[in-house]
């Protein structure tokens, strides 16, 4: 019996039960536009791949990690010093987390500037925004789990900022910390959030995002509306695009392996050394900084004066970021021009402003340290 016959028989066995031939036929008709910015289409796939790496490495860490003020730090220390390849799993998890946030940022901005959010993909954009927010929450909740000095004080500052949210701030702070202060109760909450609540929400939202992407296909460039069909080039989604996706994933995995081996504790400002165990009575370290992807917001809030108009500076900042985030999420509904396949200079300029603000504030934040 040849291999081909075997695989055909297996396919027939599954198809007779689940009717998957219709899906395979659909996959065969699916195409991906080919143009000068086609590489942008891989960014979502890379983000997805990094999420898968996160899930697998996270499950491995879960086998040894023990949440709690008396056990969290010790268990992470045990993972990196005693468990076989524990150091590698932690390094892969941390590098992959940072790369995931980076690629999610990149994916979001490329979608924004190519106007890929326009009709009929408004809900795809909204689900993507949700995934972006959840990715940041993953980072924030995971940062505290080693219960080391750096994480403790950064979480105290971070949750303190959440406490400045108008009206619900104080309640939010108590819910996040499990009390007035960052304690062992906070680890319990962050752990639950990190390994149960967020993965659940993320999986649901990710499934919706992927179904929408598959159903609607990749967005074509906005100026293709003026091109004839002959001028438009496409690539088959299956197997051509999928194979290219896998190729990129392999390269990304190798990059993670290199980074994890050479820099298991990170490098420069992107680092996660275990250091000393958290001690609420110890003086805070000279530099308390959030992770790099929160730096722009952290720095902007730091720079605000004590009072702006009739509001407290921090209050004002939180309102500013909330309104900014809301506008960003609602762009597909606000940008009427793109809905009719026309470029909107106003929204492009807004995108550049947001990008410049994030880059400038991040760099400035590290410079003033």
């Amino acid at each position, binding site marked *: 019996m040849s291999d081909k016959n075997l695989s055909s028989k297996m396919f027939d066995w599954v198809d007779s039960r689940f009717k998957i031939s219709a899906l395979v036929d659909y996959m065969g008709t699916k195409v991906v536009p080919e143009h000068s910015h086609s590489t942008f289409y891989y960014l979502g796939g890379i983000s997805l791949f990094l999420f898968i790496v996160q899930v697998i490495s996270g499950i491995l860490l879960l086998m040894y990690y023990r949440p709690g003020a008396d056990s969290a730090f010790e268990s992470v*220390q045990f993972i*990196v*010093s*005693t468990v076989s390849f524990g*150091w*590698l799993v932690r390094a892969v998890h941390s590098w992959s987390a940072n790369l995931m946030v980076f690629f999610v940022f990149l994916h979001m901005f490329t979608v924004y500037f190519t106007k890929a959010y326009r009709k009929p993909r408004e809900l795809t954009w909204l689900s993507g925004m949700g995934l972006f927010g959840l990715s940041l929450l993953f980072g924030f909740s995971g940062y505290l789990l080693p219960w080391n000095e750096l994480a403790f004080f950064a979480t105290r500052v971070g949750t303190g900022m959440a406490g400045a949210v108008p009206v619900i701030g104080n309640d939010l702070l108590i819910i996040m910390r499990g009390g007035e202060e960052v304690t062992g109760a906070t680890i319990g909450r962050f752990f639950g959030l990190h390994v149960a609540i967020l993965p659940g929400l993320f999986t649901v939202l990710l499934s919706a995002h992927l179904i929408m992407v598959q159903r609607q296909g990749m967005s074509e460039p906005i100026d293709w509306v003026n091109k004839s069909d002959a001028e438009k080039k496409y690539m088959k989604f299956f*197997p*051509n695009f999928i*194979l*290219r996706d*896998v*190729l990129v994933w*392999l*390269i990304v*995995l*190798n990059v993670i*392996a*290199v980074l994890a*081996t050479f*820099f*298991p*504790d990170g490098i420069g400002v992107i680092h996660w050394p*275990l250091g000393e165990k958290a001690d609420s009575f110890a003086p805070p370290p000279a530099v308390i900084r959030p992770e790099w992807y929160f730096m722009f917001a952290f720095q902007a809030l730091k720079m605000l004066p004590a009072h702006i108009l009739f509001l407290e500076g921090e209050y004002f900042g939180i309102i500013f970021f909330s309104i900014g985030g809301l506008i960003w999420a609602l762009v597909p509904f606000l940008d009427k021009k793109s809905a009719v396949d026309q470029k909107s200079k106003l929204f492009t300029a807004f995108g550049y402003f947001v990008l410049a603000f994030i880059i400038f504030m991040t760099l400035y934040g590290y410079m003033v340290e």
Partner: protein
Amino acid sequence: MYKKSFIYLMICMFSAVLVTAAEDNCMTCHADFEDDDGPSHMISKDVHIQKGLGCVDCHGGDASLDDMDDVRNSKGYKGVPSYREVPKFCASCHSDAAYMHEHNPAMPTDQFEKYKTSFHGKQLLKKGDTNVANCISCHSVHQINTAKLPHSSTHPLNITKTCGKCHSDSNLMGKYGLEATPVADYKESVHGQALFERGDLSAPTCNDCHGNHGAAPPGVTSLIAVCGTCHAVESELFNSSPHKEAYEENDFPMCMTCHSNHKILKPEDKWVGTEEPALCIECHSVDDGTKGIETAAGISVALKSLVKAHAEAQVVLDEAIEKGMATTDAEFSMKELQQSLIQTRTKLHSFNLDSVLPLAEQGMKQAAKVKETSAGLIEEFYFRRKGLGVTSLIFTILVIGLYLVIRKVEKK
């Protein structure tokens, strides 16, 4: 109406004159003829003034008088005491427990009694020798402060300067057959370096060993007790060692015999042994009829082996740290090893090889553990690099293979 106001005004003015007359007039005159460093200018920083005492509380007399001759003739006037009278003058309050309790209950009241037992006190009070220190020599006259204040002459950082005023004066010390080098020697010592270079205020300075008011050089037999105040373990070990009896018989100055007195240098391992510059051979020889040389040789070998093992372990550990490995366990073992090394060095004060060897052997085992753990980490480091190399090779083959597949698929 105007008459009433006038009467009120007169009453107020008269009251003001009475209040002014009752004030302390000492400053009014003394400030006029004294230099900037005179008592009237310096007194504001003095602890007595800060506690609410005035000139007359020490010097007596009536401060409300505005004529100096009248003050001198007033009741209770003591004036300025002579140099010899100063201790008794200060003691009139400082030895009065009931009076001192009202002002500073925590302060002892035995300073004068102690002073009388000191060399200074004996010389001044019995022989009338005014070259020696009395209260004001160390505490100043009108700028007296507690030792807690950094500008106080009795603050730990200022004690050597205060004592050195006399004890670094070779002419003055020569009269008593004393060296004028203690302060200079002390500054070179481990104690001096701890105090002045590290700012460790718990490091002993002059008064911690010699006493303050009862200052005197410790006697030969009391040296162990003095050093043992801080170095309790060494002192206890020495007391139960064969050296104790031998030193007493030969009138050797106990700890000082090996460590000197003011210039107490950081001890070195080479001080123990049977070759120069070992101190043991200054007294012991092969045929001295004791086990001294044998013990010195044994301790020296054990100590040197441990020090060598410690250094080797440190090198391997440093390499593991430098390679970015998780060295928590090895560093913990290294701390235990360092503790063993300290304990071995301390234990040699028993001058008993059987006491020293177990500790040295324990340290050797810990050194072996550090080396083994660190070497394992270094091996792991290279294993990781090799693993990455193999993994990258597999990835590269997969990527090339996939690329060829893609090309083949896209050609169709």
